[in-house]
Each structure stands twice: as structure tokens, then as C-alpha cells.
């Protein structure tokens, strides 16, 4: 039971970091399909910079720098050069998948996967009694998750920036008329998305295992995007959706371990987040007017 809760939190944490990060872009009207790639870039860059410098914090800083640059390029292409956000976003993901594998090979002479020399600190380790058992071996990033959720909530719901982002996404003409710089607001939103995806990637690669493998994200970026939509573009609901999707993942993994006890194939449990998102998007589409493309 305790182990199950720990697994759920560990699987949810990257989804919540990436989901809440992506929320800034999606609220600004950018259906940011490159989140998957940015997460992978973050995971690799953390391991690469961390291994090179010997410090996990410098690793995360490096990952944030890489993701800010990638986000800026993506913004430049879709905002300044009119590129299609979906196709460029898919391209960004392919670039990151290829880039991570290529650089792993070129810089560390490793193929497929590599171990990380550094790992995030885990405040509580080893077998624990009582409440502490629910947080044993969770990384410091996972511990900071509630703070992160609160900051995102503050930024999106209680700050001028959050208001501007929502206005740009929902009523771009009104926002422009009110003097909001649309391009700049989008850039800020996308940079925040990049930063959060670096954290999501770091949690994935150095949160538990301390390793990076080529296809480490395995669609988690797209699941994070689904969590945003499932969460109706709201920070708290997106967090809950991330927890729910992490739970489904944990159930899927456990059913693999206890095969035979349940008759439902693991794959059908793993389908739940995707089917739930489809149903939800369909219901919302049926009952509400389309707000903006991709929303």
C-alpha cells in the first residue's frame, strides 16, 4: 500500500511538472505538442551537465538553459516566422529525441542508455513507519511539488501575467486592444513551459533511478498534454489529472507484477488516461463552444 502510493507520486510528479508548465502555453493559445521533446531534453541535459560538473543542481540549471533556448527557437518559428505550431512541435520533439541520443553517443560514447553520476537528494530513505513510509525515497523535487503547484496557481490565477496569458489565449484581439503585447506574453508563457519541462525531465532521470535512456519519456509529454485538457486548463484540476494518470500508470505496473490475480490485461488499464481524455474532450466540445484552436 505505502509502496503503491510512493509509486503513484513518483509517476505523477513528472506529469504534474510538465502539465503545469505546459498549461502556461496552452492557456496562451499554443497547443504545445513539443512538451514531449522538451521533457526528454531536460532529462538528458540534467544527466549530461550533472555528470560533467558533478553537481545535480548545475545539471538542472544546464537543463533549464537548454530548454529555454529550445523554447525560444520554437517561439521564434511559430510567432515570428508563421510556422505551424503542430508540425513544428512534432519536429521539436523529433529533434530532441534525435539530439539526446546523438549527444549521448558523441559526448559520453554510450548507446541506448547511460547512468548518471548525480542524483537528486531524497529527504527520507529506507524502510519507514507510519506517515513517513508514504514519502520514502521520493526526490526533493517531488517534495517540493505542493509548493510548485501553489506558485503556478498564484501565477496563473492571481497575477497580472496569468491574466494576460489567459487574455492572449482566449481573446487575442481584446488583449491587443488593451495594450497587451501578444508576442511577448506568448514568449514568456513558452519559456515557463520550457523551464518546467526541464524540472519534469530532471525528476524523470535523476529523481529515482539516476539514469537516462533514449526513449525515457515514452509519451509522458503527450500524457501531460492530456492532463492539461482533462484538467480544463485549470492548475488544480491539471494537478489532479496528473495524479490520476500517474495512478493509472501505477495500477498498470502493479497488474504486471501481480499478473494472474486480475484478468484485465495491463494494456487496457494503461489505456484509461487516453480514453478518459477523449471522452472528456468530446463532452466538453459538445457542451461548450470552441475557444481557440487546439483548446
Amino acid at each position, binding site marked *: 500500500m505505502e509502496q503503491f502510493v510512493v509509486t503513484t507520486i513518483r509517476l505523477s510528479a513528472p506529469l504534474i511538472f510538465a502539465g503545469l508548465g505546459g498549461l502556461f502555453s496552452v492557456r496562451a*493559445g499554443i*497547443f504545445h*505538442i513539443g512538451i514531449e521533446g522538451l521533457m526528454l531534453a531536460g532529462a538528458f541535459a540534467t544527466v549530461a551537465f550533472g555528470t560533467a560538473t558533478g553537481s545535480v543542481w548545475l545539471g538542472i540549471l544546464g537543463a533549464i538553459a537548454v530548454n529555454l533556448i529550445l523554447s525560444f*527557437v*520554437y517561439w521564434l*518559428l511559430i510567432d*515570428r*516566422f*508563421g*510556422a*505551424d505550431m*503542430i*508540425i*513544428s512541435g*512534432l*519536429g*521539436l*520533439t*523529433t*529533434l*530532441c*529525441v*534525435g*539530439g*539526446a*541520443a*546523438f*549527444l549521448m*553517443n*558523441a*559526448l559520453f560514447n554510450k*548507446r541506448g542508455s547511460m547512468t548518471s553520476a548525480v542524483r537528486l537528494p531524497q529527504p527520507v530513505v529506507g524502510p519507514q513507519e507510519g506517515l513517513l513510509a508514504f514519502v520514502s525515497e521520493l526526490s526533493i523535487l517531488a517534495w517540493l511539488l505542493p509548493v510548485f503547484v501553489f506558485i503556478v496557481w498564484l501565477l496563473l490565477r492571481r497575477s497580472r501575467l496569468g491574466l494576460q496569458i489567459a487574455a492572449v489565449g482566449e481573446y*487575442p484581439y481584446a488583449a491587443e486592444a488593451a495594450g497587451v503585447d501578444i508576442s511577448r506574453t506568448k514568449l514568456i508563457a513558452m519559456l515557463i513551459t520550457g523551464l518546467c519541462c526541464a524540472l519534469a525531465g530532471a525528476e524523470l532521470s535523476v529523481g529515482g533511478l539516476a539514469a537516462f535512456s*533514449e526513449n525515457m519519456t515514452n*509519451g509522458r509529454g*503527450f500524457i501531460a*498534454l*492530456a492532463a492539461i*485538457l482533462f484538467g480544463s486548463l485549470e492548475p488544480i484540476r491539471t494537478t489532479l489529472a496528473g495524479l490520476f494518470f500517474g495512478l493509472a500508470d501505477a495500477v498498470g505496473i502493479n497488474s504486471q507484477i501481480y499478473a494472474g490475480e486480475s484478468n484485465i*490485461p495491463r*494494456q*487496457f488499464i*494503461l*489505456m484509461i488516461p*487516453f*480514453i478518459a*481524455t*477523449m471522452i472528456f*474532450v*468530446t*463532452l*466538453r*466540445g*459538445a457542451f461548450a463552444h*470552441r475557444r*481557440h*484552436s*487546439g*483548446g
Partner: protein
Amino acid sequence: MSRWLAIGLRVASPIALAFILGFTLFAGAGYDIVEVVNGLWQGAIAAPGSLEQSIRWAIPLAVISFGIIITLRTGEFNIGAQGQILLGGLGAASVALLLPGWPPVLVIPLALLAGIILGALWSAIAGVLKVFFNADEVINTLMLNFIAALLIQWVTTGPLKDDATRGETASTPRVDRMFRLSDGTGVSIELILIVVVAALLAWIIIERSPFGLKSRLVGSSPRVAAWQGLQIKRIHITTYLLAGAFAGLAGALEVLGPSARLVTGATPTLGFTAIVVAIVGMLRIPGALAAALFFGGLQAAILFLPIVSRLPSSGLRIIEGLVALLITAQFLWQRRRRNQGQKL
């Protein structure tokens, strides 16, 4: 003439830029560019069997891109080809595996048809949800890709399991030799004939049929189309069915052709590369065929390059990603436009 030159430049310049950026990175990482270029040339064209490999990969890319061209022209954004290919493969594999010993003249058309129908139905799910419930097709086709991948994972580890395989590469048993359209090389007269027929059909649908005309109108100016009294819902549903049918056909050709079996996690990037093929081909069938050969060559080189040069195959994935990242951008000489809320 200058119009075609402009179009050519518009397509060629992002591709050239992608190669320049990629090669700069390779040079920076200490790889010998001459060796890489030679490896590309060998892997895509010159080495024995390379040209076959290029064509082998061009075949599915071309067939899938036909369907994507139809959807993009109607103004829909279907990124679900990946799942539709898998369902097409499932249809073909099921028929071929469940009817052993039946005459091939019966089984092969049935298998192709099953692939086409399953692909079309899978695509139609997103189409119906879009048309009748206003549910976003980008999200739903994305979700359907994951559901399809898990479904195939279940099929290949459960109902149609080959006991010799497991895990990431679990697959169905091999399809009977009689039912195959080609050997492992994936190039044969039969396959090429099917692609030619598919290309002709797609060309007729797009350029010469009432549906093609109507769908283009729906895509370019939906309001005018509505005033004209076009049945927009029907056109949209037909679009999704056609897109899924072409992707399903491609999946069926994989199973009856080079792959001989349905494999979990096979060709994970094919459906996505086909979108790039459609756009590089300027949403026209001849263009898509040329683009499919180009990206087929790139795919063949990706698989070949690690053998001849030290450059890992991921290097070419970088170039593929850069092409997709840049291909829709409007550089310098084009009219810059805001495409807020506007797809493509």
C-alpha cells in the same frame, strides 16, 4: 514558371537549412562530414540493395501521405496516421493468420480490405467526434495513436501471440509465404503496382472528383461552402474515412510485404514523417511521391549509416526533426502572416 521556382525554393530552403545545421553539429562533434555525406549517398542510393531500401520506405510514406493530403486540404488536422497504420496491419494480419490454407487470390484482397476498413474506422472515430461533438481532432487522433499502440501490444502478447517473441518486440506469428506481396526487401512488382493504383486513385479524388473540389472549398473557405449548401459534415466524415483507408492500406502492405508480421512498437515515426512528406510535397500527389522517395532515402540511410560511418543513426533523426521544425516557417521573401487559430 517563376511561381514554380518560388515553390521549389520554399520547400528546398528549409531542407537545405536543416542539413546545414545538422552537418554543422556533426562537424562540431568531431565527425568527418565527407564520410557522413558518403554514407548518406551509399545508404540511400549507391550501395547494393540501398535503392531498394529507399523505395521500401518510400512506399508506406507515400501511401500514408495521400490520406494526409486529403485531410489537410479539407482543413482538418489528423495526426492519427500512426494509429491507423497499426490498425491496418492488425486487419491484414488477422485475416492472413485466421484463414490459413485458403487460396491467396481470396486472402490477399480480403487482408488488404480488412486493413483499409480498420484503418478507416479508426480514423472515423476522431472524425465523428469532431463533426458531431465538436471534439478537437488533434487531441483525439493523438490519443487514438496511444490507444492503438497499446491495443497492438495486447494483441501481440495475447490473442495473436507468437510464443518466440516478447516484450518490446513482441509480434504475431509470420504470415504464410503464399500471402506475401514481397520478400523482406519490401520491393516487388505487386507492391509497386498497388502504390501506383493508390496514387492514381488519390490523384483522381483530389484533382478530378466533385469530392475533391468540395473538400478544397470546405478547407479554404468553410463559410462559402456552407452558403453553397454543401453537406460539410458528410465531406468531413468522408475525409477521415479516406485518410484512415490510405494509412490502413499502408499498414496492411507492411504486414503482407517486408515485415511479414505485426510487431509491437514497429515504425514508431512513420505516421509523423508522412505528415512532413505531405507538406514537402506541397499537398499534391506527384510532389508527395517525390518527397516520399527523399524521406525514404533518408530512412534507408538512417538504418545504413551506423554500418559505414561512426555517425549514429540518431544524427539523421536530428535532420528529420529540423526539417519538420522549419518546413512550415515563412522565411524572408514570403509574406509573413500571423496564423493565430489557423491551421496550416
